[in-house]
């Protein structure tokens, strides 16, 4: 399968038809989507019309842009004007946004072809895509296992070749963990790197949109397109970003790669072995390995599961049966709110709204939410110190390879522990990405996480490219 860079180059120089590229992907969708269920909506007609329009542009001598004819899968929590956006929730079923998210506008301007809206854990709350109101997504590597989550639909779509690239959102690991479990590249950029305008809010101080791709280079290309300041998002960073595609060949000679000596335990042996081999690969490529400490790393889970639900309880107050989505009729507004929300939200969303409302309520605020914000500062400051000694850090992306459906049972905490290695970067705002690095138990993919300092995406991508080169050198001796 051609990567996004190759597709765009071919479409732009006329050697490849965008229409043919779309048909190839629709054919793969027709063959395997019934089994995988990556999509809430496949946009066949729109994608065909769009690819014809792109081919017409090229024929007329115009340049459709850096993603010309590239089929992309969008997580179904990004607003698409006039096209249903559900967040995999009954409460938003049928809703058609009256505007496009900024990333959607940018993708259109770059010539991309949206091929469908992908499944997720309801409102992005989960690590397995089992919490979708429309049924789970299956892992293309083993359909008895989860694809990870919450961006499981986009990760599975890219992994199965339903789309050349995908976009997910990452609040506590929701891009990086499914990327690891599906064997693709997944990036959570620095907080503020990509506009959140039109991303349905889960936890506003943690949410970031990012790429899911089959190669580091495609992730760089996609992030170059969607990144940048947006006046519509007051938390978007008002700085120009250097091109990430341009830095990939710079290598890692002299780069300082940090090993967190007090990383929380709990990762499976196969995952730890691969992570060790990633350090070896970096050393072999000319990097220096240094030890760093992040003692508060281990408290990330607690801080996250107080802060994220607190913000979610506030953000999800808008689903009240008044302006959009589901309404359960009742004699007065209070009864309508309560019944609408009880009928429209799934169990995990209700649980987090309850936890967040509790953590914010009078008498408990200081003990929970207030304390969690202080732990967040500790984690942030400790990472800042670590990045004075190391350019990037390596950890596992997920404690295990893809697990079977129902493996976490009814124990919410067991599911929350899936994100133990990814959560701290959301709290601190630093970037992180998962890179496929071989396989573990049952030949399932393992992802290694590369972490870097604020706006240090260039270093992070150089390290990721080095890991990718090490893997392909092994696969093709």
């Amino acid at each position: 399968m051609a990567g996004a860079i190759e597709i765009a180059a071919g479409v732009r120089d006329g050697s490849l038809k965008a229409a043919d590229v779309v048909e190839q992907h629709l054919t793969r969708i027709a063959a395997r989507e019934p089994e995988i269920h990556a999509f809430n909506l496949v946009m066949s007609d729109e994608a065909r019309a769009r690819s014809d329009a792109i081919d017409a542009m090229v024929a007329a001598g115009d340049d459709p842009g850096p993603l010309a004819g590239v089929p992309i899968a969008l997580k179904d929590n990004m607003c698409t004007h006039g096209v249903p956006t559900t967040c995999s929730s009954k409460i938003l079923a049928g809703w058609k946004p009256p505007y496009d998210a900024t990333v959607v506008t940018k993708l259109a301007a770059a010539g991309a072809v949206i091929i469908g809206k992908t499944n997720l854990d309801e409102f992005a709350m989960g690590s397995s895509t089992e919490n979708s109101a429309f049924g789970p997504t299956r892992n293309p590597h083993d359909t008895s296992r989860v694809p990870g989550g919450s961006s499981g639909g986009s990760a599975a779509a890219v992994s199965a070749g339903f789309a050349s690239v995908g976009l997910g959102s990452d609040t506590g690991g929701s891009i990086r963990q499914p990327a690891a479990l599906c064997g693709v590249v997944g990036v959570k950029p620095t907080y503020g790197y990509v506009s959140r305008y039109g991303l349905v809010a889960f936890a506003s101080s943690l949410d970031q949109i990012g790429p899911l791709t089959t190669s580091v280079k495609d992730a760089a290309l996609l992030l170059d397109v969607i990144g940048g300041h947006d006046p519509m998002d007051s938390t978007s960073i008002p700085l120009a970003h250097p091109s990430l595609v341009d830095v990939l060949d710079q290598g890692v000679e002299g780069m300082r790669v940090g090993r967190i000596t007090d990383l929380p335990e709990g990762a499976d042996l196969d995952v730890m072995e691969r992570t060790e081999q990633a350090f070896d690969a970096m050393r072999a490529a000319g990097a220096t390995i240094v030890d760093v400490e992040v003692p508060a790393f281990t408290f990330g889970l607690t801080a996250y599961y107080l802060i994220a639900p607190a913000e979610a309880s506030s953000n999800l107050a808008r689903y009240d049966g008044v302006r959009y989505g589901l309404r359960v009729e009742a004699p007065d507004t209070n009864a309508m709110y309560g019944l609408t929300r009880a009928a429209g939200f799934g169990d995990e969303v209700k649980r987090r709204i309850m936890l967040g409302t509790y953590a914010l309520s009078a008498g408990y605020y200081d003990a929970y939410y207030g304390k969690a914000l202080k732990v967040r500062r500790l984690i942030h400051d400790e990472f800042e110190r670590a990045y004075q000694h190391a350019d990037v850090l390596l950890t596992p992306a997920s404690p295990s390879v893809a697990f079977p459906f129902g493996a976490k049972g009814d124990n919410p905490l067991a599911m929350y522990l899936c994100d133990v290695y990814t959560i701290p970067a959301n709290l601190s705002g630093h970037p992180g990405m998962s890179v496929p690095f071989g396989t573990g138990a049952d030949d399932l993919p393992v992802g290694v996480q590369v972490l870097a300092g604020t706006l240090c995406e260039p270093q992070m991508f150089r390290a990721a490219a080095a890991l990718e080169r090490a893997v392909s050198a092994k696969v093709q001796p």
Partner: protein
Amino acid sequence: MSERISAAVVEKVARLARLALTPEEIERTTAQLSGMLEHFADIDALQLDDVAPMAQPYPLENVFRDDVVAQGLDRDEVLAAAPAAEHGRFRVPPIIGLDL
């Protein structure tokens, strides 16, 4: 394990959150929140008196924009998505009435 949260508190929180939970859901939520809060006690031992809270990662101050007229959302399109609308407005049941 001592209960960290009572069913009465969970019922009150459900009212605050505008979630009409069933008695079974209240019972299950009480047990699950209790278990989570037990786990979250790991931060109780941290010395945090001198640590400033951090609500968001990027140290942005107030963000201003020029006061220029811009295109807003289309009113009819927005209202078309509402469960009920009338005379260019959202329609809701009486605000004063039976309390939950």
